[in-house]
């Protein structure tokens, strides 16, 4: 851990003691598969993604240079079986930062090139804020839980 990481999103009180609040994002039909919506909740800009009918939310700030990560291109993961072989897997599950192209897995918030050490911070509905993996000094961004109730997309944010 270094002093360069972001301050915790929930600035008041221990995170575990604060229940996340559900915020209305939009009606379900306004966020079809492959689309995203960027909203501001509790002072934070958050990208809400529909990936094949499942919803994910990431803090709209890249841990690299705090660029608006969620405005980046959404695409698949380009993989290879060896030199000159190019294939695409997991179409639509990767967002690449619009500034320097760092790729993040929308479904987990983990960076592709350093998945075990660099990821976005995750908030669970029931357990509150999880600990960010920042043991190499890279700052983290947050992910959030998204649910659907009565045809409305709900974003769960603590604090």
């Amino acid at each position, binding site marked *: 851990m270094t002093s360069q990481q972001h301050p915790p999103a929930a600035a008041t009180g221990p995170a575990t003691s604060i229940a996340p609040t559900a915020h209305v994002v939009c009606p379900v039909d306004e966020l079809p598969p492959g689309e995203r919506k960027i909203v501001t909740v509790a002072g934070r800009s958050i990208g809400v993604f529909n990936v094949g009918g499942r919803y994910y939310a990431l803090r709209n700030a890249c841990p690299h240079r705090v660029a608006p990560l969620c405005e980046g291109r959404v695409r698949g993961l380009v993989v290879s079986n*060896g*030199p*000159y*072989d190019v294939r695409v897997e997991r179409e639509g599950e990767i967002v690449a930062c619009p500034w*320097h192209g760092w*790729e993040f897995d929308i479904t987990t918030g983990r960076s592709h090139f350093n998945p075990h050490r660099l990821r976005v911070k995750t908030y669970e509905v029931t357990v509150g804020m999880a600990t960010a993996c920042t043991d190499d000094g890279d700052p983290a961004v947050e992910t959030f839980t998204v649910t659907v109730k009565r045809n409305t997309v709900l974003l769960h944010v603590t604090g």
Partner: protein
Amino acid sequence: MTAITTPTPTPANSVLATRPKFEIVDSDVHHGFRQNDDLYPYLSSVYRERLAEYGGVSAVIGTGHGLYNGGAFGRRVDLLDPKDPGDRGTAAMNRDTLRHNLLDTSGVDLAILTGAQLYGASTMTDQTYANALCRAFNDYTLEHWVGADSRFRAAINVCSQDPQGAAAEIDRIGDNPAVVGIVMPCGSIRPYGHRSYHAIYEACARHDLAVCLHFGGEGSGINPAPTAAGYPSYYIEARQARPSYYQVHLSSFVFEGVFEKFPTLRVVMLESGFGWVAPYVWRMDTDWKGLRHQTPWVKRLPSEYVWEHVRFCCQPVDEPATGDVRGDTRRLIDWMHGERTLLFSSDYPHWDWEDPQQTLTSLPTALRRRIMGGNARETYRIG
């Protein structure tokens, strides 16, 4: 049918005799001077000396862009043969003289012979002739050098512009236990990671040989200009472009996936210096984080491939302006994992050589032992 008539032969001189006479002006008559001395009275002493050592405009054709060198003919002035006024510095490259100067006197225990005079073969249009020259030099090296002293090993010269021919030469003598690598000049048609060269690396992998690159041949023969910004004017200026040659080849090896394809391959950058290495590799890592999807076969950070597969030579050592070799130079070495990646090289007999007794002497003994010998033994697989 008409009768065939035979023309009556006419003597040529009678034809000339019938032509009208008028003045003839020849617009292209090639004259010349018999030897360089003829021009000396018209040159300053500076250019008299340069013409004597490196030649004039004819050398421009021969070396691509007419660059001269330092020292005497590029070599140490103190090694000129005092008994031979015609010595152009090659006396120091004679086997017995070299053995005395470097192995017996300067303390080198094992010398990897890399040649120099055949680097230009890779710039020739006639690949068959170029291959024959390399083959001859390699056989000469095996017979007269490594055959004469067990302290010699050879990195054989191959023609990089003919990968199939180079592979054939590697297969021909690559199993000779004295052959530990191949040498290719940095001047090339395209960067060396390109798939057109892979036959060379397949052959090196077959015989477990290191691939050594040494600057040379840039801007010569079949090769493009020595830099993308054109031709440097001066020798000292051209020297500053050398790291760029190694850099282009280095990133080519990494991003073409050569080390993914040939996981046992080692590449040695001869006469590379090392001050540039760490920042350049950092740059590759930085860029890869955002661009890796364009070359997805590069599965690890570029630095991981470099530190595992590529070795650099200490000469010429960039001397820090701070004078703080113990601190600043040490940092450069640590940043590039020099305990694994840095090899001692003297560049004997050139004027800018490194005396093994005075190279990086302020380093801790364990680190210096790796750099002076251990790393090379591992890289060249010398048991």
